[in-house]
């Protein structure tokens, strides 16, 4: 039971919170605004906030230069693919850790996480050579597998913390009711963990979408996602702030919008069991 609060206090909170929030989001808002400016106005001094000549020319130019859609499709396929693949492998693992914990479970989890600490640049050449050997270079499947492996520890950890909150009773009840392991996971655990799985999926789509080391180094054309798209823009030639902004906006918009719409689910799952 929290205490009732006066309207004045609420107004002050509102003002403060909005200021902070706008400050934090400002770089993004500013980029989006800039993407609608004509180039000269994009670098005008003093900066123009809203009173500029709105245009979508920058987007058209960017699209002309690069077929956005192909990169977009690759991003979608790779991020969703790697997440789903990860889920299929992680759910049984998380089930085991959460419901049949052993003395080593915690260590195992920490070991899994520690695989993420391996510096990617250090193992680039080995992975690259392996990819050549296996013919995985610039394939969606290769990238999907790599991103899955990168994010697998996080997926497992998130699911583990989620599963742990599910009372073991219910799984036992299912067992009493005649469910085998497969039915138990399929009909009882997974549907019950839907909110947790959803937030796991969301977080991992975001991580995969934004992964920009492997995606750039292991792809050329066929599997190149939006990180590669933006890599081609990273040095604007001359007065191209607006175009750069447009390209940036195009690269981040899909995930930003997805994130905004799903932030509740995302937040719920993000706590890694940190909140009891």
């Amino acid at each position, binding site marked *: 039971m929290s205490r009732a609060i006066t309207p004045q206090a609420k107004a002050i909170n509102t003002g403060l919170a909005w200021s902070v929030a706008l400050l934090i989001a400002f770089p993004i808002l500013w980029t989006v605004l800039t993407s609608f400016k004509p*180039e*000269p106005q994009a*670098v005008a*001094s003093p900066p123009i906030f809203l009173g500029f000549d709105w245009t979508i020319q920058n987007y058209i130019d960017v699209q*002309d*230069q*690069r077929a956005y859609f192909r990169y977009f499709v690759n991003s979608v396929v790779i991020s969703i693919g790697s997440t789903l693949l990860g889920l299929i492998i992680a759910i049984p693992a998380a089930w085991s850790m959460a419901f049949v914990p052993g003395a080593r479970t915690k260590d195992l989890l920490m070991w899994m996480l520690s695989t993420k600490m391996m510096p990617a640049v250090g193992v680039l*050449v080995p992975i*690259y*050579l392996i990819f*050549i050997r296996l013919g995985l*270079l*610039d394939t969606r499947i290769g990238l999907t597998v790599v991103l899955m492996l990168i994010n697998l520890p996080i997926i497992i950890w998130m699911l583990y913390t989620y599963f742990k909150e599910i009372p073991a009773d219910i799984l036992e009840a299912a067992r009493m009711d005649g469910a085998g392991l497969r039915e138990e996971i399929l009909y009882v655990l997974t549907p019950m963990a839907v909110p947790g799985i959803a937030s796991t999926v969301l977080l991992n789509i975001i991580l995969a979408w934004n992964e920009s080391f492997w995606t*750039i*180094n292991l792809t*050329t*054309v*066929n599997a*190149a996602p939006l990180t*590669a798209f933006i*890599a*081609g*823009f*990273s*040095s*604007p*030639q*001359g*007065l191209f702030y607006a175009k750069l902004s447009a390209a940036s906006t195009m690269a981040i918009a899909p995930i930003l919008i997805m994130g905004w719409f799903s932030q509740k689910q995302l937040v719920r799952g993000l706590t890694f069991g940190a909140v009891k």
Partner: protein
Amino acid sequence: ETTITVATVNNGDMIRMQGLMDDFYAKNPDIKVQWVTLEENALRQNVTTDIATGGGQYDVMTIGTYEVPIWGKQGWLVSLNDLPAEYDIDDILPAIRGGLTVDGNLLAAPFYGESSMVMYRTDLMEAAGLTMPEAPTWADIEKAAAAMTDKAKEQYGICLRGKPGWGENMAFLTAMSNSFGARWFDEKWVPQFDQPEWKATLDTYMNLMTNYGPPGASANGFNENLTLFQQGKCGMWIDATVAASFVTDPKTSTVADKVGFALAPDNGLGKRGNWLWAWSLAIPSSSQKQDAAKAFINWATNKDYLALVASKEGWANVPPGTRSSLYANPEYAKVPFAKMTIDSINAADPTAPTVKPVPYVGVQFVAIPEFQGLGTNVGQEFSAALAGQKSVDDALAAAQKLVTDEMTAAGYIQ
């Protein structure tokens, strides 16, 4: 139908080419082209890894005059000597062609070539009561820079590269050092940063930049300076000749009609401070589709392509600096910077870049594999000096040490 993958750098000419592909497809209906467009460093990183490990992802790579001799020696590139006769290899500018030929084999076809030159604001010079000589000395430059600087109005006498990198500040500084009689190595590959010529080079550079340069210059590369110049914030800018088409384009430049050009400065020692570079198209030996790749290179770098660009985008947008015939064309001669570009290119000699003799080729680089690392590390030191974090002497001493160590480790210095 054959699909080839072409890795290109994300500059304007290359992007423009992607927009003109209908012509290629009309002429080569059975070839499809996929583009990989990357920023310069990412491109270099990607294609080098690919070619060195035999990745075979690319059929055509955009590389520079730096890579060609090195890669050529490794046998990584396909000879282009058998391009059709109408391609007219002899039309390619000799300085450029020389840089792209190894053991008599042309290993890359130049897409565009560039040197560097002085771009300056005619209106500001006039206001200062000065005129820029066609072939200025560094003293002329300093005088002009001092006269045009008005920091209160955000007007800086001179903009030069400061961002660290072998292709960024070191391209400029190495070329500049040539005009001061400096060199990277003596004939025995001993580094020369402890010599007075380098000190003179850096002192001049620091003097110009700290007194007349824009703030934050240590992060400025080509693009940053271009933006500054287009905004009218620079009195002078010494950089690639290709910049001329941008600074004179009224669509992006606020000073389009107020730009004059001059040769890169000298110090009366017989070498000017300009460089030579050509973005060129090459075929890795690992490519399975060499015929299609050649067809593409032929299309992208022959005379017809220049005419095509001219017809679609005007003569000012034609990729410059590759063919003598272009400069013989009276239409092209009307382009304001055409003459200065060809003069600058002709003023550079990659095979004898310096006043004193050197064991290497390359004007603004040293064509050895180690140079990317060396150039970048030295560039970091010089950039730190420009940022005021180190003295010139310290930076030079550090450069001398690190280059000596590296060259010793690499076996050049016995």
